[in-house]
């Protein structure tokens, strides 16, 4: 079993995952997207389907143009880093999985020589695509894409300039990303940011960062805590559940109306400890050059060739906060819990009421 974070940054799973993984739900989003997601989830509920995917995490390559310290995604031999999913493999995974949203992390997807073709095919399937990028190549490659409600660039931003450049281990990255965001917004593309927070994060700096991102005109911001692992050697740096709740409560206290979050409002409530959920690891299934990853985006317990096998053969009871699995004990990451919060929204009247209340509070 491999944990991506096994040599990763304290308090987080690893940087490439942070760059790439923040998933794609749900507001503020176009009404058509909200409707698509809502009708999809309700359809699954009506069919009595307990385990359904919400966001396909499609990793077409692991190669990146950053080399962030602790990043597990780039810790492979060169011949593995050189492998790419073909557009046909990507479309086939999307068809097989059926999720209404597709998040494309990596590696850096814009390195993929056929990323435009991959996106085009997914958009043709009416998938809401979140292309997760560090934006180093975004400005140069914008011409490859057409603005559409189905495509969002989700730009990795880990804070204001000093924090972001330190996190990605390269000076100048923040400035390039900001410039690319401006250009993409100006050209009519949907743009969000995605941010992962760690132990030691200064809440007041994060609040300033939110102000800066909203000034850039992004549609919304995605947030997640880093992945915590109980057995990690350096516990003092890890964001355990209680510290995660405290940090997010501080960040989101007296939140400004100008801040828009591209997340389920219930997930933000969960991060602050105002509601508790169990993990939904099948909510964001991951497909990459090795196949369908068991059980989730963060853990690598093996691979299976089909999505059906992933759903049917994974022993899901072995995972989640309450399972007793030490690898899941402190995890509050979006890819496990945002799907839980969406499921809650459509699972009961109280869940729906919670969502409405939280949505009004967060302006989402």
């Amino acid at each position, binding site marked *: 079993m491999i944990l991506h974070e096994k040599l990763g940054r304290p308090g987080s799973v690893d940087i490439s995952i942070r760059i790439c993984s923040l998933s794609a739900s749900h507001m503020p989003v176009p009404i058509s997207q909200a409707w698509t997601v809502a009708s999809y989830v309700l359809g699954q509920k009506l069919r009595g389907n307990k385990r359904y995917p919400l966001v396909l995490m499609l990793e077409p390559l692991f190669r990146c143009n950053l080399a962030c*310290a602790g990043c597990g995604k780039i*810790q492979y031999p060169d*011949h593995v880093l050189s492998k790419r999913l073909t557009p046909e493999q990507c479309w086939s995974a999307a068809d097989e999985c059926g999720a209404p949203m597709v998040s494309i992390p990596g590696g850096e997807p814009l390195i993929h020589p056929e990323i435009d073709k991959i996106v085009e095919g997914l958009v043709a399937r009416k998938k809401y695509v979140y292309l997760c990028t560090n934006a180093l190549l975004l400005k140069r490659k914008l011409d490859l894409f057409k603005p559409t409600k189905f495509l969002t660039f989700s730009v990795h931003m880990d804070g204001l300039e000093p924090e972001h450049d330190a996190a990605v281990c390269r*000076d100048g990255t923040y400035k390039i990303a900001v410039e690319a965001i401006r250009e993409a917004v100006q050209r009519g593309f949907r743009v969000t940011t995605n941010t992962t927070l760690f132990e030691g994060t200064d809440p007041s700096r994060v609040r300033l960062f939110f102000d800066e991102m909203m000034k850039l005109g992004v549609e919304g911001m995605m947030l997640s805590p880093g992945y915590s692992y109980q057995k990690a050697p350096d516990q003092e740096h890890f964001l355990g559940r209680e510290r995660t709740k405290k940090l997010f409560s501080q960040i989101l206290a007296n939140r400004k109306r100008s801040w828009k979050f591209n997340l389920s409002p219930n997930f933000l409530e969960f991060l602050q400890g105002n509601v508790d959920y169990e993990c939904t690891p099948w909510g964001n299934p991951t497909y990459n050059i*090795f196949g369908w990853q068991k059980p989730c985006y963060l853990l690598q317990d093996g691979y299976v060739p089909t999505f059906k096998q992933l759903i049917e053969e994974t022993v899901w009871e072995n995972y989640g906060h309450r399972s007793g699995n030490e690898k899941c004990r402190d995890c509050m990451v979006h890819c496990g819990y945002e799907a839980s919060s969406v499921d809650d929204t459509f699972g009961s009247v109280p869940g729906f009421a919670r969502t409405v209340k939280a949505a009004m509070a967060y302006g989402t």
Partner: protein
Amino acid sequence: MPQADKHALPTHKPGSIEGTTLECGDDASRRHALQTAFDYRGDVTLDLQDGSHLLGFVYLYNEPGDEVQLFVPQGKDSVPQTVPASRVRQVRFTGEDPAFGKSWDDWTTKAEKERQKEMDRLAREAADRGHL
């Protein structure tokens, strides 16, 4: 350096299993060796019972553990290959451990000058590939 030669180098690094060998004397030791190979982030060499060798990245060793799946380098690409676990005599961790010394703590404990040098090198490599 050709990839094959690189993998043949016995480069044991203290703190990493790179350069070490695990024997598969019985079922338990075979399971341990192959599970360790699955966890390893670099390439390994599987020495098989018939005296042949298979070099590659182990990406799958599923329960009940009767098969190992690898990506075997071929030129600049690699291709998937499956080998029955029972055929494996020993596992040599011959490929460079790409995770070793790459943790966040490793990074932060480096001197500023060393970090800058590494940042420059990595940026140059990405630029050389046309990725910047």
